[in-house]
């Protein structure tokens, strides 16, 4: 008689958390601490305690301080950042809970910055409208220690590839150890995805190709707001960044782009380089067609952005790490005195649709952090994390973890033991390991490079038309089909194969949604529909997969019940 154990290592748990970053750890800890009798397992393709974005790019998180005006913040966000596609109830809920969430981090041992009286240190780091709080880059290792102490079980170097289903319910996941190739079958009554989204902003910080998003999509979960995922930002032509560059670029006539195209942002004293408005990026894009845009290096000073003097950040690990990173500048060509700038973009996708407890459209499945940064709709029509507000990804990850953990643990109490189908697991295993059976074909690194090459040109990724998007989509689908020819020499290569396949799936979701939205809103800019159309498009686009086919639908934003209307 066949049994699952013949296929690989079988683990049973009440709650499975895939991903051990700033979302996954709070979910796991909270699940265990609210339901101590439940088994909670946290799994990561990296070493648990070292994974995710937070140990490198983190450290500053969005926080609504007691002195901030909550209503004014929400109103500003809905009108100027989310463009009315927010779930305004969730935006309120998130904003209200930020301060308490930061305090929870401190209670768990994270060294959250405090003032001389021991009070949580918050300040208007980048904006007059909302505050930030800070912690050092060791927050994940400290959370890891807390998780261990709480009784959470940890499993490192296992990449989750597919979700297991029993009817319409998710009952765990399968994956493999990236070091030794061992196959894992994890039975779980509740599963929380915290594996990050597709994020091509900075490879050095984010090893995320949307593996969890692709797994959820292929299991039938709904996606939302996927068309807004790409991050658009001016940069030095040919690549490279200069601090606060966006605020210091000018045209040949000497007009500064920020002052010309987003004076209202400067008036608000918002110097967050993620805030760039659609009018700004479209303006810069059009001016680039007239002639070069250049960076005024003499204006690149600390007067724009950077912590105000009253915030005495004491984060030695962050200081040490960023000092080390600066050595890399020795290897690149020095910027010329007046460098030319261009519009750059980074592919992103974090669209898993969730409710206010971060539950997806599938029973037994929750999605938090960057897997659902867009799909939760808290931020509306924003790009992927940071979603035009620096520090928001850390806080959104934390909030999602705090809510989903207890909800998933409660649901596990109601759920029966997962029934796993042997034949289905066998099929998934054969598919997963197929690249190891070939000795030639497509290298995953080449597939990733090809996908980057398809979507990175601004005329493909940013300035969109129906014709161009159809061609882009067709090319993405071509790569996705070619992924059947992927080959891997070992389990590390197998991990890269899953990353390449996941990236192709994510990009297909993005462009399917983008084709459907026949208007321009936020960074979804359509040359053939250049205006925002509130009459027809106060709607969310929902993308899902049914029987292997992509199904699109729209859902009106319930604007009548929300406080702020166009």
């Amino acid at each position: 008689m066949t049994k699952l154990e013949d296929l690989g290592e079988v683990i049973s748990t009440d709650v499975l958390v895939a991903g051990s970053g700033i979302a996954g750890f709070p979910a796991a800890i909270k699940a265990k601490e609210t339901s101590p009798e439940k088994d909670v397992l946290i799994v990561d393709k990296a070493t648990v305690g070292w994974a995710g974005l937070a140990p490198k790019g983190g450290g500053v998180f969005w926080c609504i301080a007691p002195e901030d005006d909550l209503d004014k913040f929400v109103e500003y966000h809905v009108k100027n950042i989310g463009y009315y596609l927010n779930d305004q109830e969730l935006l309120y809920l998130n904003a209200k809970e930020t301060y308490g969430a930061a305090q929870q981090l401190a209670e768990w041992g994270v060294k959250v910055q405090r003032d001389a009286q021991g009070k949580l240190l918050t300040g208007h780091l980048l904006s007059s409208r909302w505050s930030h709080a800070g912690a050092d880059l060791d927050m994940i290792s400290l959370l890891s220690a807390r998780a261990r102490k709480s009784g959470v079980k940890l499993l490192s170097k296992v990449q989750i590839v597919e979700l297991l289903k029993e009817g319409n319910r998710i009952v765990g996941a399968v994956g493999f150890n990236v070091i030794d190739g061992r196959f894992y079958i994890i039975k779980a009554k509740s599963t929380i995805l915290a594996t990050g989204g597709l994020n091509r902003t900075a490879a050095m910080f984010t090893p995320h190709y949307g593996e969890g998003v692709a797994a959820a999509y292929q299991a039938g979960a709904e996606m939302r707001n996927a068309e807004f995922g790409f991050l658009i930002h001016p940069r030095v032509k040919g690549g490279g960044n200069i601090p606060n560059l966006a605020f210091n670029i000018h045209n040949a006539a000497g007009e500064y782009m920020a002052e010309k195209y987003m004076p209202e942002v400067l008036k608000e004293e918002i110097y967050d380089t993620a805030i760039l408005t659609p009018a700004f990026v479209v303006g810069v894009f059009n001016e680039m067609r007239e002639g070069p845009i250049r960076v005024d290096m003499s204006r690149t000073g600390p007067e724009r952005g950077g912590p105000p003097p009253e915030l005495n950040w004491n984060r030695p690990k962050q200081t040490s790490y960023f000092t080390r990173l600066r050595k890399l500048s020795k290897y690149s060509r020095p910027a010329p005195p007046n460098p030319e700038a261009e519009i750059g973009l980074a592919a992103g996708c974090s669209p898993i649709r969730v409710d206010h407890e971060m539950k997806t459209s599938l029973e037994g499945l929750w999605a938090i952090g960057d897997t659902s940064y867009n799909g939760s709709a808290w931020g509306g029509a924003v790009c992927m994390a940071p979603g035009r507000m620096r520090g928001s990804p850390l806080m959104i990850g934390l909030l999602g973890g705090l809510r989903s953990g207890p909800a998933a643990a409660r649901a596990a109490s109601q759920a029966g033991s997962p029934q796993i189908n042997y034949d289905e697991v066998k099929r998934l295993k054969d598919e997963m390991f197929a690249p190891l059976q070939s000795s030639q074909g497509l290298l995953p690194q080449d597939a990733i490079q090809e996908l980057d090459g398809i979507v990175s040109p601004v005329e493909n990724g940013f300035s969109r038309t129906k014709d161009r998007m159809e061609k882009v989509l067709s090319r993405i689908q071509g790569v996705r089909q070619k992924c059947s020819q992927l080959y891997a020499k070992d389990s590390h290569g197998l991990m890269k194969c899953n990353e390449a396949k996941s990236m192709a799936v994510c990009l297909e979701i993005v462009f399917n949604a983008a084709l459907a939205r026949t208007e321009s809103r936020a960074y979804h800019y359509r040359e053939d529909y250049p205006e925002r159309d509130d009459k027809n498009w106060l709607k969310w686009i929902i993308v899902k997969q049914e029987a292997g086919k992509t199904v699109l639908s729209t859902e009106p934003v319930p604007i009548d019940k929300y406080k702020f209307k166009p």
Partner: protein
Amino acid sequence: MAANIKFDLDLCSSCKTCVDACFIDVIRWDDKKEQPFAAYPEDCVLCLGCEEACPAQCIEVLPAAVSAAPQ
């Protein structure tokens, strides 16, 4: 991206921290020699996380085309 990852094995204390710190599985552990090695330098993204984490400060990560840091 790709890198030239150098380990000063005379200084290495065999703590394996670099293997943990490498979030993309570029650095592996050689059980026989009991020392780290760059198994997939072609996939290194130059995050310098291993350099930063190493208690003995015995790792130097350089872009692939660079053999030594400029003075």
